[in-house]
Every structure is written in C-alpha cells, then in structure tokens.
C-alpha cells in the first residue's frame, strides 16, 4: 500500500484500528478533536465502538471497563483532559489492565493555550495520577512515527498489563505528513482468560476473575506495589528506545530533545555543522523509561563539553538529563512553552551562546 497524506490526529485514529483496537471512547478537546471526528465515522465502518463520553473522567473508566473485560480500548485527549484522566490511569495501573492513552499536548498550566507544547513531560513520565505507578511513554517525532507507536502501544500495554501513553505535541496532531500503515504491526490481543472479567462462560471456567486495585492489608499492598515495580524495572531493561544523531564523530555539545522539538534541533545541528560547530543529539523515543545509559555514554565522549536539554517546557526533561549525566558534564536547558515551537535559528543561538 502506498503513502497517504494524513493529519496526525486522523492517522492516530486509523493506526489504532489497523492495530486491531476497535473500541474508542473520548471527550473533545483542542488540538486533538480530529481523532474523535475521524473515528466517529470510521469506527462504525470498521465494526467498532465509538462513544463520546460525558467527561474525560468518565472516559478513563469506560476505557478501564472495556479493558478490564478483555477488549482493546484507547482514548485520546490533550493536557487538561489528561489531568482528568489521570485518576483513571492510576486505577488502571493498580488494577493491572492494558490501555492506551494519547496526549496531544498543549500549553499549560490551567487552560494555558491550544498550541503545541511538551509541558506534560513530568506528568506523563512520573505518574500522572496518585500512587506508585508508571506508564510506558512513547514520544513520536513525525506522523509516521505516531502511527507506528500507536500500533506498538497495544501489544506493549498487554505485555505489561499497564497503561501506555503516546506523548505527542499539538503539531504532531495537526500536521499532515505522508504515512504508511505497516501490516506487520497488526497484532492479535493476548490471551486474557486468566485475569479479564470477560465472563466465566466466555472462558469456560468456574473460577471468577477480579479486577481491582484495593489492598487493605499493608503487606498485600506492599507486595502488589513490588510486583508493579518489577514491571517498571522490566520496562527499563526491555523497552528503552532512542535515536542518535551524529554521535559517532566528535562533538562539543550534546543535545537531548524529543518529539517535534527534536526535528527542529536536527535542522539546527545540520546548520551548525555546516558552520563547523559540531553538535550531536540523543532523541528519546521512550521518555519513560528514559534512555539514561545512552545519554550518559554520549555525554561522556571526550570531545563533549556540555549537554543541553531542549524542550517545549520550562525545564522538565532536563531533570532526567541531569540524572543521566550524573554530574559529569554541565547540563543546560533551553525551551519555550507558549505554544510557539522554537525555530532552528533560536536553537542555533542557544547553542552558540553555550560554547562562546
């Protein structure tokens, strides 16, 4: 199948269907309402479920219900809506159910704005809701990558029985780029008979299943949390994804950047290198788990003088970068979070200011 020019939001909706997820619940919010608009037509055509819920809070439990009874389900929202869904995410993680949440980030705090932003980095990577839990967070830098990450998210959510988040910014949702839907990423749902509330008759069993997050006994709750922690540790071993740019040769500055911002950095790096200022980049594709080792190794390169986290947020990812670099290099931050994506020229100025 050839490439189609598609808006990120629509491609995300289509990707879920192509991945084999036929259940979508959502509440409209800019800049991702096109996902719901697209799926309102497309889901019935594909024989799936589309439902506009009364609030993001309710939507997160519709996802929980659907997923708890063993069916693939996903939702999409943007920053303020994600805050409301965070409650459900905590319950879903506690109840050990798979689910996919897409956050097409806009600026905050509060209503903030509707333009692209990466201001929900800490919310996404450190656990949006209450309690000891994490989500696997994939951060696409193009519409094609958003498609692939959405399609990968479902088997990952099932592998860990944990929510997976796609963390994109407004531009990923609004931009049109050519996309291809890879057939090989379509996966069959894993067998859920040992935990899902799909009805005893369905699984021909006399043993009932229970989906819950309440553990009143402190020892039981502790061991439940240890079990969850073991999953997050396994994610750190098995799921870290990243990309490097020009890290094989020498460089004076190492950029760490993700999503749309990383593309701006790429252009800036090309320009800087043509001006004989060598700069390289590590681009996390998973922001949880964060590619600590890759950032550490890249920062330890002898030629590398400084490290800079470039993000559309007021210094959020820089905390993970600092942690990874372990004090071995100076770590700086550059970013903007009003909705305006920094231009390559602004990135170039920020890098030049560092090496003066």
């Amino acid at each position, binding site marked *: 199948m050839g490439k189609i020019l598609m808006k990120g939001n629509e491609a995300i909706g289509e990707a879920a269907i192509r991945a084999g997820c036929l259940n979508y619940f959502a509440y409209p919010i800019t800049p991702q309402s096109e996902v719901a608009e697209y799926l309102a037509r497309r889901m019935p055509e594909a024989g799936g479920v589309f439902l506009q819920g*009364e609030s993001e809070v309710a939507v997160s439990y519709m996802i929980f*219900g659907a997923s708890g009874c063993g069916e693939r389900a996903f939702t999409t929202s943007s920053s303020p809506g994600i805050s409301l869904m965070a409650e459900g995410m905590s319950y879903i993680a506690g109840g050990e159910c798979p689910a996919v949440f897409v956050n097409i980030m806009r600026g905050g705090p509060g209503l903030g704005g509707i333009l692209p932003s990466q201001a929900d980095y800490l919310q996404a990577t450190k656990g949006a809701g209450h309690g000891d839990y994490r989500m696997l967070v994939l951060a696409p830098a193009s519409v094609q990558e958003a498609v692939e990450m959405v399609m990968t998210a479902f088997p990952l959510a099932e592998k860990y029985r944990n929510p997976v988040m796609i963390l994109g910014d407004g531009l990923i949702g609004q931009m049109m780029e050519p996309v291809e839907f890879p057939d090989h990423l379509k996966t069959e749902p894993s067998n859920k008979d040992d935990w899902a*509330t799909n009805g005893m008759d369905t699984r021909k069993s006399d043993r009932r299943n229970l989906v819950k997050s309440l553990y009143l006994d402190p020892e039981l709750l502790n061991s439940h949390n240890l079990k969850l922690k073991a999953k997050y540790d396994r994610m750190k071993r098995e799921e870290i994804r990243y990309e490097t740019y020009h890290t094989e040769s020498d460089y004076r500055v190492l950029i760490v950047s993700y999503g749309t911002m990383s593309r701006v950095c790429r252009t800036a790096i090309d320009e800087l290198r043509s001006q004989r200022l060598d700069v390289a980049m590590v681009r996390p594709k998973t922001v949880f788990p964060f590619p600590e080792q890759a950032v550490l190794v890249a920062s330890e390169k002898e030629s590398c003088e400084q490290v800079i986290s470039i993000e559309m947020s007021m210094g959020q990812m820089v905390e993970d970068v600092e942690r990874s670099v372990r004090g071995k290099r100076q770590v700086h931050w550059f970013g903007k979070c009003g909705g305006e994506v920094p231009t390559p020229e602004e990135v170039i100025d920020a890098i030049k200011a560092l090496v003066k």
Partner: protein
Amino acid sequence: MGKIFCKPVSLSDQATHYCPGCTHGVIHRLVAEVIDELGVRGRTVGIAPVGCAVLAYNYFTFDFQEAAHGRAPAMATGIKRVRPDLIVFTYQGDGDLASIGMSEIIHAANRGEKFTTVFVNNAVYGMTGGQMAPTTMPNQRTTTSPFGRNVEEVGMPIKVAELISALETPAFISRQSVIKPKYVVRAKKAIKRAFQYQIEKRCFSLVEVVSTCPTNWGMTPVEAVQWAEDVMHPYYQLGDKKSPDPIKDKED
C-alpha cells in the same frame, strides 16, 4: 423431600464485614438470587463502588471489577459497549452515586446504557465514618452535620429515582426498601425486572433501595428500621417511577 431453601450459588461462603443491622447483606442476597434464577451467573460482571460495598466482590462468585468513587456507571458503559452479551450491574451507595458520581449515573442513564444499577440509599456515608450524604434527611445528624442537616445551607436530600426518571430516555426506575420482609419481597421483584430489562436489551434500569445504617445513625438495628420507616419512607416514596413497559406495570 428435596431441599427447599439454600444459599444462592452466586453468593460466596465468606462472612460479610457489614455491621449488625446493616441491610447490604439482604440486598446482596437479592441480587444473587435474581442472577441464579435468571441463569446468567456465567456471563455476569458486577462493579463494586467506593463505600461500604467496596468489598462486595468478596461475597459474589462471578466476575467483578472495582471502580473508583462514583465512576461505576462509566465503567459499566465501557464493558457493556464492548461486550453487549455480558450482564453488567453496578452496586453503589448514596455518597458514591448521588454525590461524586452524579455526572456518570445521569449520563449513563440518559444514553440508555443497557446495564443495571442497584443503588443503596442509607442517607449517610458509611465507609468513611458517617458523614453527610446528598440523601441525608433534613436535621439528620452526621459527623459533618453535627447540628443536623441544615437545608438552608445544603439544600434538600436528592431523590435519585425521581431525578433520573425525569430523563426522556426510556428506562426502568424503581425505589424499594428492605427494612421489613414485606418490602424485601417487592424489592426482589423490582431487581429481577431490572435485570430482565437488561437481558432483553431494553433499557437502562435502576433500583434504589432504602436501607439502614444503625452504626452511623447511632441507633440500634430496631430503632434504625423504625426511623427508616418513619422518616425516610415518607420522603423517599416507594414504587416504580418509570418503566419502558406501561402495560406490564398495570398487570403488576
């Protein structure tokens, strides 16, 4: 002579954690009997609320999910939409359903979601220790209305069954009581009808059950039953509030 009375298969052997004089146990049993009689245990999913009935899943023998405070109707919606063949019910108290979960129940009812809600109204928050609920009676003392519910400040108790009946979407909405055997018999009929409407994929169904909470009311079980009958019953009028099936109503 064969066995003429036994515990429903849908009910587990575990002793409940409910207080003496609490009617949750009676309502659990009614739900279990109905599910047995309708032969749907193997495809039933119950949804536990937050509140005293949070542990309800320990007392039933079919699949269960546990929701957050008030969100059970949204969770039931999720299950029912993706698995319309499953029989789904939420079991919710008054703090859960009528306060924090008012939005979820109204919208699920208004969408005509084909699940059943058993709504236990005992006019108080039980699990958290006797705080005022939206259904607490005027002048009723609770830990957060120590001088009695002041309706000038917090309004009148919410009549959930009537409120939901006002929606235009067809539904079966009934209010029953379990404080005396004669009420229990009627309550079971209503709960059975509620599940039948679901099985027939007819409509959303909700049965509000007037219940007692001697512990948090500061009464003996006997006093509690009397108080429910004297104070709650006149305000929370029993009977069917709405039905998708007016002819059947007349026959009953």
